[in-house]
C-alpha cells in the first residue's frame, strides 16, 4: 500500500474506482457545505463576516459541479452504504454554548467548513507521475487550492469579534469536527487501498 492514489493507469490517470470514491466523498462534504451555506446566509447581510458565507456558498457549488464533470465514474456497490455514513456526519451541529441561535448555527457551519477545507488535502494524494492534464488530477489540485483560500472564510468567522466571547466553545467544537472529518476521510482512503497514518485520528 502507498500513501498516494494509484497504481496509475498507463496514461498517468487515477484508476476510476479510486476517482469514484474520492469524488463521491468530496461531493458529499462540499455539497453539504453548499446546502448549509445556502440556508445560513441571511437575505440581508448585517455583519462584514457574513459576506464570507455568500462567497462560500458559490465556491462549494463550484467544487461539486467540477467533480461531477471531471471524474471518470465507475460502478461502486459499496458507495451507497458509505454515503449514508458521510451524510449523517455533516448534519448541522450548532455550537450549543452560544445562546444566539442563528449565530450558533453559523459557528457550527464554520467549524464543519474549516475541518473539511483544512483536514482534507486531495492534491496531496497525487503521485508525482500523475498526468497533470487529466481533468480529475487538475480538479483535485484546484479543490485543494480553493480550499486553502476558503479556509480564510472560516478563520475570519471563527476569530471574529462576534465569536471571541465563545472562544473556548468554538475551539472545542472545531477540534471535534476535525477529528470526525479526518476519521471519515482516512477510512474512505483506506477503503481504496491508500495507506494512512491514522494514529492521530483521535487527536485534535
Amino acid at each position, binding site marked *: 500500500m502507498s500513501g498516494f492514489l494509484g497504481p496509475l493507469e498507463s496514461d498517468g490517470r487515477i484508476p476510476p474506482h479510486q476517482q469514484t470514491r474520492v469524488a463521491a466523498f468530496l461531493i458529499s462534504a462540499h455539497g453539504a457545505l453548499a446546502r448549509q451555506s445556502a440556508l445560513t446566509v441571511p437575505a440581508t447581510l448585517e455583519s462584514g463576516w457574513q459576506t464570507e458565507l455568500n462567497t462560500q456558498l458559490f465556491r462549494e457549488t463550484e467544487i461539486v459541479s467540477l467533480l461531477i464533470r471531471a471524474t471518470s465514474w465507475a460502478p461502486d456497490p459499496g458507495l451507497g452504504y458509505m454515503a449514508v455514513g458521510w451524510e449523517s456526519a455533516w448534519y448541522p451541529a450548532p455550537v450549543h454554548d452560544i445562546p444566539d441561535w442563528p449565530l450558533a448555527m453559523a459557528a457550527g457551519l464554520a467549524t464543519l467548513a*474549516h*475541518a473539511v*477545507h*483544512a483536514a482534507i*488535502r486531495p492534491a*496531496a494524494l497525487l503521485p*508525482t507521475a500523475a498526468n497533470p492534464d487529466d481533468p480529475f488530477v487538475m480538479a483535485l489540485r484546484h479543490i*485543494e*487550492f480553493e480550499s*486553502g*483560500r476558503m*479556509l*480564510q472564510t472560516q*478563520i475570519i468567522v*471563527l*476569530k471574529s469579534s462576534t465569536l471571541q466571547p465563545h472562544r473556548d466553545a*468554538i*475551539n472545542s467544537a*472545531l*477540534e471535534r469536527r*476535525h477529528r470526525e472529518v479526518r476519521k471519515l476521510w482516512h477510512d474512505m482512503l483506506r477503503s481504496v487501498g491508500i495507506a494512512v*497514518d491514522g494514529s*492521530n485520528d483521535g*487527536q*485534535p
Partner: protein
Amino acid sequence: MPFLSHGSYRIRYELDGPTGAPAYVLVNGLTQYSELWGAYRAALFARGFRVATFDLLGQGASDKPTLYISQDDQVGALGLLIDELGDSPIFLGGVSFGGLIALRYAIDHGGRLSGLVPMSCFAELSPQLLLLGNALRTGLILGGTSYLQDLLLPMNLSDQWLEPLLDKLDTVKRQGWLVNDVYALQNLMESFLDFQPLTPRLSAIAVPTMILNGEFDFLTPRSVHETLRIEIPNSSMVIIPKAYHAFTLEKGALTADLLARFAEDVLAGRWQGNQAVWVAPEEPGGELTPFPAGYDHLRAIPVKRALP
C-alpha cells in the same frame, strides 16, 4: 516515530546518539520539519554529540492545533524534549522562528543550558520584518503553501544553490508542501499577532551564545542580530560569508562544524564571547577571522566605524 505529550497535543521528535553525551537540540524554522536536520544529525553524531530534533506544534508529524497556536506552548514542548535528555550538557540551536523559541527558552530556563546558538534570528519585529511577515502571510492565504515556498526560496537561498535545481524545484518543495498544512502554517504565523519584543529580557541570558547571521540575509538582516549581540552579555556574532537567511540548509556542513566547535570550546572552557564579531570560514574546518577592526559590521560597504 516517538512522541512527547504536551497537554492534549503530541510532539514528534527524533533523538540519536549516546546517552550522557553532550547534546544539541535543534529547533526548526517556520516552514521546516525535523528531517531537514538530517545532515546535522550525522555530522554532530560523528563529533560525539547526541542530537535531538522535533516538529513544532503545527509542523510535520506533530499535532496541528486547529485555530490558535501559542508560542508559550512551543517553548513548553521544547522544554519537554530537553527534559528527555537528562543531566548531560545541552546546547540549544534554533533557526529563524525556531531561534526565537530557543531565545525564549534560554531567557526562562537558561540554567539548564550550556550554550545557545540563535541562527537567522530576531528578538523583535522591526518595521521591515513585520511588513515582510504580513506579506508572506498574505501570500500563504492567497496562494497556499506552494506560493509561500516560491517566495521564500529565492529570498533565502543563493543563486549558486538555486541554479542547478531550477528545473526540479517542484521536487525540492514537495516534501515541505506535503507535511505542512496551510491552516497550521497560518496559525504559526498568527502566533505573532500578540508578540511582545524579547529585547528587554535578553540580558537575562547568561549562557555562552554564538549568534549566526548570513552575510546577505535580508529577511533578518545584521541589524536584528546586532540587538542580540548587544543585549546578550556572553555572546559573539559570526557572519557566514555569501549566505542568506536559510544558510542552515545551504551550508549545512559548515554550520554543523561551527556548532560542534562552539560546543567543544565551551566544554573545554576556551569560549570567550566578548560580544565580538567574527567572520566564518567558507569551508568547514577553516579559521574564523575577527571582523576588520575599525570598520562597521552593520554596513555592506567598508565604512569606518564612528568613534564613540
